[in-house]
């Protein structure tokens, strides 16, 4: 049988799914055991026991100095920043994208501007952002907003252009004015697309969040990682990275479920 026509059966498929993860874990723990055998104090590749101890210390023991549970406090402040950043970016991106994609009079000034803005690397203009937004919570949220809004807006503008003209004409013959048209035809079309676009920019949003927390902060997942890096505490960094990956994956899954439940017709329309 040709390779292209060979499909793994159920058990084989599960095995193939798990194989790369198992290999990664295996390589890690072999490397870790090797380094620890040579130097019991090695910090670079901590063992599972060391990581469990670190998680226990950060997540389930009160911090001696502040009396907080650092892990949960970090998670909470990071998620708050990320949620606000994503929320604002989604709202602004939706408005801009809808305006630029539907109204030719607004498309002329907005479209090229968004294209140019989306090319500016936000991390390169950090000093300017500090001066405009200060160093507090606002600047961290704004870094996420500035980083992902242009991408969202450009994507939604394209999707708005892809709405069949027949639909728009039909609505107009039925007496819809511009406002009704945007609210009743364009917006419902764009909402599921917005959720998909959000899923795609989740990775960038996390990147900007961690960068913002590394610069000036007193808590947050990115803050902790950059702080303990100062003494190479990989036993803290590795669980934090796994936790961030898990959170990002859950958020992606959540957005997909929302899209499926709220806009079941969207998946159907594509098929």
């Amino acid at each position, binding site marked *: 049988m040709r390779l292209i026509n060979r499909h793994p059966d159920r058990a084989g498929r599960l095995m193939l799914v798990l194989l790369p993860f198992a290999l990664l874990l*295996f390589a890690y723990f072999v490397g870790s055991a090797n380094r620890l055998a040579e130097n019991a104090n090695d910090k670079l590749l901590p063992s599972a026991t060391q990581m469990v101890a670190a998680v226990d210390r950060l997540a389930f023991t009160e911090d001696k100095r502040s009396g907080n549970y650092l892990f949960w406090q970090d998670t909470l402040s990071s998620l708050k920043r990320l949620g606000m950043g994503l929320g604002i970016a989604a709202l602004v991106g939706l408005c801009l994208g809808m305006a630029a994609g539907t109204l030719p009079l607004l498309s002329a000034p907005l479209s090229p501007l968004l294209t140019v803005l989306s090319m500016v690397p936000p991390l390169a203009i950090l000093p300017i952002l500090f001066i405009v937004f200060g160093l507090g919570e606002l600047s961290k949220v704004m870094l996420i907003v500035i980083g992902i809004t242009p991408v969202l807006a450009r994507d939604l503008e394209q999707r708005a252009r892809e709405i069949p003209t027949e639909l728009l004409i039909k609505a107009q013959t039925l007496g819809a004015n511009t406002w009704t048209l945007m609210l009743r035809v364009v917006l419902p079309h764009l909402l599921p697309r917005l959720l998909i676009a959000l899923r795609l920019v989740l990775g960038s949003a996390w990147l900007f969040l961690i960068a913002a927390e590394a610069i000036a902060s007193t808590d947050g997942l990115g803050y902790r990682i950059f702080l303990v890096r100062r003494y190479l505490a990989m036993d803290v960094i590795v669980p934090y990275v796994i936790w961030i990956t898990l959170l990002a994956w859950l958020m992606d899954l959540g957005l997909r479920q929302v899209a499926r439940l709220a806009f079941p017709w969207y998946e159907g329309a594509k098929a």
Partner: protein
Amino acid sequence: MRTPRLFSLLAAGLAVAISINAPAAQKDNFSVCWTIYAGWMPWEYAKAQGIVDKWAKKYDINIDVVQINDYVESINQYTAGQFDGCTMTNMDALTIPAAGGVDSTALVIGDFSNGNDGVVIKGANKTLADLKGMPVNLVELSVSHYLLARGLERADLSEKDLKVVNTSDADMVAAFQTDDVKAVTTWNPLLAEIEATPNVTKVFDSSKIPGEIIDLMVVNSDTLKDNPNFGKALTGAWYEVMATMSADSPEGKAARESMAKASGTDLAGYESQLAATKMFYSASDAVAFANSPKLPATMSKVAEFSFNHGLLGEGAQSAEAVGMSFAKGVSTGDKSNIKLRFDPSYMQMAADNSL
């Protein structure tokens, strides 16, 4: 099913690949890393002028001198075994490689900060006591943090009385321009930049705690023990540059000028940084510093600070967890776990002209 066999093959391959990097005792090729700082620019000069190569050749070895842009990363790379030596401060030598179980030796004591690190508050005529209740931006857990802690002791304050905000050194100068930032603790050349802002006061600096923030060339103790020539070549190259750069001659000026350029400033700027750095131009001065009883006392203070901030690792039960050895058989901390050694014997050879 072919997958299981593939799996075990791959696994075996990986195991072999990982176990190969066992350390070789005797070797001919070495590499050391350094980062940009007033007191470490001589390494740049020593490499660019071929001085390291010359000394390495004398002892029939190769030494590669690599510049790293990120200070903490350079120490992490050294700790992970990528380099045989690296430039770092006394505190970082204790908290990163030594606390990480990598037995390290301070081969060359290059200088100590004598004003290169400082605490700056916005506003005129401020004092250390004004720090109470203020947010202070600094690179947390760095020598800046240590300097601040020492300053607070003088003002009868503690870290609980203020809020420390971790801020990346790369963004310190830009951060100082914002309204949120009231006070910073940082090092040169950032400190000079921040002090130049109108209406600010420098309330404390490292010249008030002389000899506590020490800049070193740290090498792996095992590598040094098996290859004394590596230590001799590095030390020889260092003191040749020291002699050149401290000379009041056209060559000395040219050397300082090239170091200034490499560190991104001009001769005047570099010389003002050197003025805040107590360089040990002569090997005998460095040996005297290493032999003085003040050094073990300083390191005990640094160990105490590090332990209080959790820098010695969670396994550490006390500030004594990591042992340190000094000249004349003096040692502090756990004697069965000596991981940081101040060994002036190579500098002594340079002082005796026997390299």
